[in-house]
């Protein structure tokens, strides 16, 4: 069997001295889309922050492997260059940084880190225009400062645009459906589905089943109290929708 894109082994993570993740094991093989579902506070966001390398998320035990190599010692930018991408639940607005400047800096920084040549301006423009068209992102939006004044739907489309341009091996979608109406959900999901590929995997984090009608997962994992407590195929998501998370709550002592 080939090396999985993402492998998480017995991951324990502390935030401000409190243990949030209590031994997560997860394998996402190449080309698969896995969903993680769980109620608020179950540790889903901690998992995505720990994978992407945010300061303040301390791994006390276990390992995270990207294509077979541990990324724990890498800074966030190095993890990105290694092929990791997270679509943020709340993309950050950055006044004074033009969207195009940002996209070019990010693409070229990753290419530089991988020892590849930087993009020429025509190559860059062509790539952006192609990807923007697929996501119905107009030129005006690209002219604005990064995410500034974007609607909820525009922000999520901009995240998927970045994902398309950066061509990651592993995509994490953190509550991508939050703040989206049905039409926007459709556009964003189509954008994500277009990026499904045999050498690319995805981890979709959500607490609603509806996103999974659009981005159909290969596997569904239920998260509770910092662990994966059950795994199954896409039918598990429907079961959860019907029964709720209560059955998975930790038993009160």
């Amino acid at each position, binding site marked *: 069997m080939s090396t999985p894109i993402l492998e998480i082994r017995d991951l324990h993570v502390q935030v401000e001295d409190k243990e949030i993740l209590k031994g997560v094991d997860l394998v996402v093989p190449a080309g698969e889309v896995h969903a993680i579902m769980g109620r608020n506070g179950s540790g889903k966001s901690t998992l995505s922050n720990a994978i*992407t*390398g*945010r*300061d*303040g998320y301390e791994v006390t035990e276990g390992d995270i492997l990207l294509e077979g190599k541990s990324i724990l010692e890498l*800074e*966030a*930018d190095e*993890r*990105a*260059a290694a092929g990791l*991408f*997270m679509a*943020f639940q709340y*993309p*950050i607005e*950055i*006044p*004074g*940084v033009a969207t195009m*400047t*940002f996209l070019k*800096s*990010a*693409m070229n*920084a*990753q290419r530089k*880190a991988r020892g590849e040549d930087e993009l020429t301006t025509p190559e860059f423009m062509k790539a952006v225009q192609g990807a923007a068209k697929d996501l119905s992102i107009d030129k005006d939006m690209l002219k604005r400062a990064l995410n500034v004044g974007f609607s909820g739907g525009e922000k999520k489309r901009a995240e998927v645009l*970045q994902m398309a341009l*950066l061509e990651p091996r592993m995509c994490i979608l953190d509550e991508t459906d939050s703040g989206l109406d049905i039409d926007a959900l459709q556009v964003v999901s189509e954008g994500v589905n277009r990026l499904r590929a045999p050498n690319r995997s995805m981890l979709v984090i959500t607490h609603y089943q509806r996103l999974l009608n659009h981005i159909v997962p290969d596997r569904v994992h239920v998260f509770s109290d910092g662990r994966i407590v059950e795994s199954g195929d896409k039918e598990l998501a429907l079961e959860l929708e019907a029964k709720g998370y209560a059955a998975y709550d930790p038993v009160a002592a």
Partner: protein
Amino acid sequence: MTDQKPILTGAEKALLAQLEQAGQSAGAHEFAIAGLPTRRVESYHYSDLRSLLTQVPLLAVAADVAPGTESPAPYLSDAVCLDMVNGRVSIPGNMPAGLVVKEISGSVLSERDDALVRLNRGLAGQAVHIQFEGDVGWTVLVSRHLSGDACHVVDGVDVIVAPGASGTLVEMFDSSDAAHLGNHATRVRLGEGARFTHVIIDLCARAVRHFHSLEYDLGTNASMRNLIVNSGASLSRVQMFGRFSGSRAHGDFTGLNLVDEGQHCDITFDLGHAVPDTTSRELFKSVARNRARAVFQGKIVVDPVAQKTDAKMMAQGLMLSEGAQILTKPELEIFADDVQCGHGCTCGELDSDTLFYLMSRGIPRAEAESMLIRAFLQELFDPLENDELVGRLEAIVANWLENGSASAGAGKAD
């Protein structure tokens, strides 16, 4: 009864001797009593010159330096360039139509209860007078060089923008690597409907102590924008005294302290809305790295007759290192009742969420920090219409970011 006469510091004694030698006996007498301002003088609250100014070099002798020999390639290609070397003006013979430039003597500043102004008035030698006429919109670049061995330079620029005329003045300060003391002045008077842009950039050597007093008078319907950039001298204070004396005038007053290890840079601002129906916007930013101190004091006074005044002042600071200090003091004194005046102030580190967002896209920490610092400063430069000048300002920031530890905050951004 205690003796009120203070013990003068070495620097004060040297200044006193220079005033006496210049025949300013009244000024010298006053200075002997008051000395240099301490923090007890409200407008010098964070810049105690008595302790900060430790040594005063000899007054520059203007004839020592041949004028006009030091100018390299023009800093701004479309500008009319004037050089002042150690206070000595050199004026090219062929001034374009619409621009009158001549040498004048003495201080350009009005009398005022302020130590630096008094010293400028007492010791000023030469000044240059620049008059903008018509709406050609000339850009004049005055490069003030402090040259050779350490010296005390006291000089001035006097500007008149004629009614309906427009113009831009860029003042650049640079120096040899010596402990010069500059006491510079610029006075600007805007006639009815005049439009004026004023950019002041200190790029002196660290050893220099740089003082600059600015005086603005805005006539009816006049409008102006200024930008002060302090980044060179170890000790700098740029103080602005502005006055609206005609209705419907507007001023945008902006500034930047871009400071690093060992620097103390102060922008102090005193603006009087003296007539009805005038507007002003003030935006001051500080970026401090390592053990540096940036000071901003802004005071807006609205006279009882100045109804419909609309003034908003904003000060924003970015601290890149633990030892950095940003000290801000806004003051509003409002004596009219139908006005809109406000002030705001923010100060902090680079936002860790924003930094993480950029890094999560593959941008290394140092580059992400630089992007955010440049973004923070962009709104000071964007309104300037001269693209070449904006390019120069961006280059100053880029140079500042590259030299020295651009990622001094690395590892402790949280």
